[in-house]
C-alpha cells in the first residue's frame, strides 16, 4: 500500500516516522498486528512497530484508488 499522508499528533513524531520511511509516497505493508492494538509495518526490509495512535494517522492509497 502506498502511503498518501502520515501525521502524528506532534511534528517531531511525524518527522521521525518520515525518517524511518513512513512518509507520503513510500510503500508499506502491515506485517502483523501487535499486542496492544498497534502493528508492525514493513517498508522494504525495514520493520517498524507503531502504536494504534500512530496507525490512525497513516492514510494509504489502496491499489484501486491508486489506479483510479
Amino acid at each position, binding site marked *: 500500500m502506498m502511503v498518501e499522508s502520515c501525521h502524528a499528533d506532534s511534528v517531531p513524531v511525524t518527522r521521525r516516522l518520515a525518517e524511518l520511511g513512513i512518509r507520503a509516497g513510500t510503500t508499506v505493508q502491515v506485517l*502483523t498486528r*501487535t499486542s496492544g492494538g*498497534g502493528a508492525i509495518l514493513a517498508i*522494504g*526490509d525495514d*520493520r517498524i*512497530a507503531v*502504536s494504534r495512535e500512530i496507525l490512525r494517522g497513516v492514510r494509504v492509497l489502496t491499489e484501486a484508488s491508486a489506479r483510479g
Partner: protein
Amino acid sequence: MADTIPRHSDPAPAPAPRSRVVALVGSPNSGKSTLFNALTGAGRAVGNYPGTTVEVGTGRWTSASLGDVTLTDLPGAYSLDPLSPDEALTAELLHGGSALDAAVIVCDAAHLGRSLVLAAHVRQLPVRSVVALTMSDVADRRGVTVDTDVLAERLGVPVVRLDPRRRDVSALARALAQVLDEPPPRPLAVSSDGVGRCTPACPPECTACQPADVADLTASLTVDDDLERAEQLFAWVTETTELATTRPPEARRTWTDRVDRWVTAPIVGPLVFLAVMWGVFVLTTTVAAPLQDGLDALFTGPVTDAARAVLGAVGLSGSLVEGFVVDGLIAGVGMLLTFLPLMAIMFALLALLEDSGYMARAAVVTDRLMGRLGLPGRAFMPLVVGFGCNVPAISAVRVLPDARHRLLTALLVPFTSCSARLTVYVMVAATFFPDNAGTVVFLMYVTSIVLVILGGLLLRSTLIRSMGSDPLVLDLPTYQRPSVRLLAGATWMRLRGFLQTASGIIVATVAVVWAMGVIPAPGAAGSVGDVPVNDSLYAWISEHVAVLFGPTGFAEWHAVGALIVGFVAKEAVISSWAQTYPAGSDLSASVFADFTAASGGHPQAAAAAFLVFLLAYTPCVATLATQRRQIGMRWTSVGVVMQLTMAWVLAVAVFQIGSTIS
C-alpha cells in the same frame, strides 16, 4: 546559531599534534557499538557525558595508518532532529564540531535508506567524515547489494565497506587518515532545486551547492520552508538509495518476520515476555544467590579468620586495628563482592536481550500497559528485576533509549521491594501480626507496586515534567545470534565500571557504621573500642534521630538504629537490631515491648508504620552508588530526599490512622 557554525569555505585549522578526536555516529542497531568495540578493544570505557545522564563511550583506536585517535561513541540517533536527550547530545556534539576532527558515519547496508537520513544530516555540517558501511553480510543474504562507489559519489566522502565481526578495519583507518589530511569537504547540498544533482565536482558558483542552513536542522519544523527542506532531503535519500542498491524485485518475508508474528502478537506476545522476565528474575535471584552466599561465607569465614590470625600473630588480637580490618574493611569489601555475581549475570542478560533483538519486541508488548502508568514499555524489565535486587535493576535502566525515561525509572526502582527487605518483613510481621503474617508480607508487595505508580505520578507532575509521552514508533532489528566474545566484553566493561564507582562508597559506609559502634557517645564513659553498644556513638545518634520519628510510633533508638544500618544494607538490619539488645534476650519480645512503650500502646500500628518506612526509604548504599553512576549525584540526592520524605509521610499516616482505629 547559523553564524557561529563555520561554512565549508572557511579554512579549517590544521589538525594539532594532540590526540585527534573522531566521533562514531549511527542509528541504533546499525552496528555502531559493535564497530566501536572492534576498533577500541579492551581500553574503552562508558560513562555519562559531563553534566548529562546520557551515556557516551570513549576509547583509544590505534592503527598503522592513523596512529592514536580518541574515538567517541555518540548515542545512536536516527537523525540530527532529536526526539530524546540522547539524540540531542549527538546533534549538539556534531554541531559544535570544532572539538571533533572527524566523524565516522555508520551506515547499515541492509537498511540503507534509513541510514542515509542521518548520513545526509551529518554531511550537511562542515565535518570531515568517512562512511563505514556495515551489515553487508545481512544485505547479501537478502540479495541486496550496495555500490560503494555510487554512495561515495552521492555523499561526497569515502565509503568503506566493512564487517566488524571480522575485525578487519585497516581500510577504514586508511580512508580516515586521508580525510584527516584534507580540508573539510563541501557540505552536502540537497536543498532548493539541487535535489540529487549536485556532486563534489560542481563549480563553486553552483547555487544549489550552498550548504543547508544548519540552524534549521534542529529548530522546530513548524515553518513550511523546513517541511520543504525535509521533503527535499527525503527525495535525495530515496534517489540515492535507488541508485546505490540493487535488490530483488520482491522483499521476502524473513524468519524474523515469522518469529515476530508470534512474539509481538496479542496474548502470545505477553506470555513470551512474562516467560523471559521470569527467566531474568530467576537468574538474578535463585541462580545468583548461592554464588553470593559462597562469597559471603568466604569473607566471613576463611578471609576473616586469616586476617585475625595474621593480626593476632603481630600482637593486635582484640585491638581496634583488628576491629577495623575485620568488621570495617573485610565486611565492606565482602559486601561489595557479593554483588559481583549478581551484576555479572545482569549485565550479561542485558547484553544478550539487546544484541539478540528481543528487547525491542519486549518494548512493543509492554508499551500499552506501561503507557497507562505513564512509563515507557522497556521500564518493565528494571522494575521486575528490582523485586530481586535494586542494584542490578538500576543498572538495567540503560535499556531505555531516552535519558528522561532512564532518570524516571532509576528513581522509581528503589520502591520495588527487594528480597533483602523481605527478611525484615517476615520478622516484624511474625512478631506483631502472628496470625496474619503472610497477608502482611503480601500487602507489603502490593504497597510496593502502588508506591512505584504513585512515585511515577509524583515525579512526572513535579520534577520530570518535560517528559513527553510519545506514541510508540520503534525500529525492530533483525534477530541475530549474539557473539559470546562481544557479550563477555560488554559484561566485563560494565562490571569494571560498577567496581570503579561503587566500591569506594560501599566500603567507606560500612567502615563508618563500624566506627560509630566503637566510638563512645559524647559524655559517656568508656574508651574507643571498649564501650557497650548502649553508650556508643551509634546509640547516641540513633536516639537523636529517633526524635524525628515521634509521630510514627516507633521513636525508639533500637528500631531507628536498625533503620540507620538499613541505609547501608537491608541484609544487616536484623543482625544489628539484635546486637543492640543484651546477649541472650529474645529479639521479638524486646522489640514488641519497646514498640508498645514508644507508641503509647499501639504496637501494631507502629509496626505497620515501621514496615512502610522500611519499604519506602533508600534501599542500600550500593543502590545509591549505582544510581550515582546512572543518573549523577544531583538526581541521586533528589531521589534520597524524595524517598525519605515519602517514607516518613506514609509512616506517619499509617501510624496516625492505625492508632486511631485500634
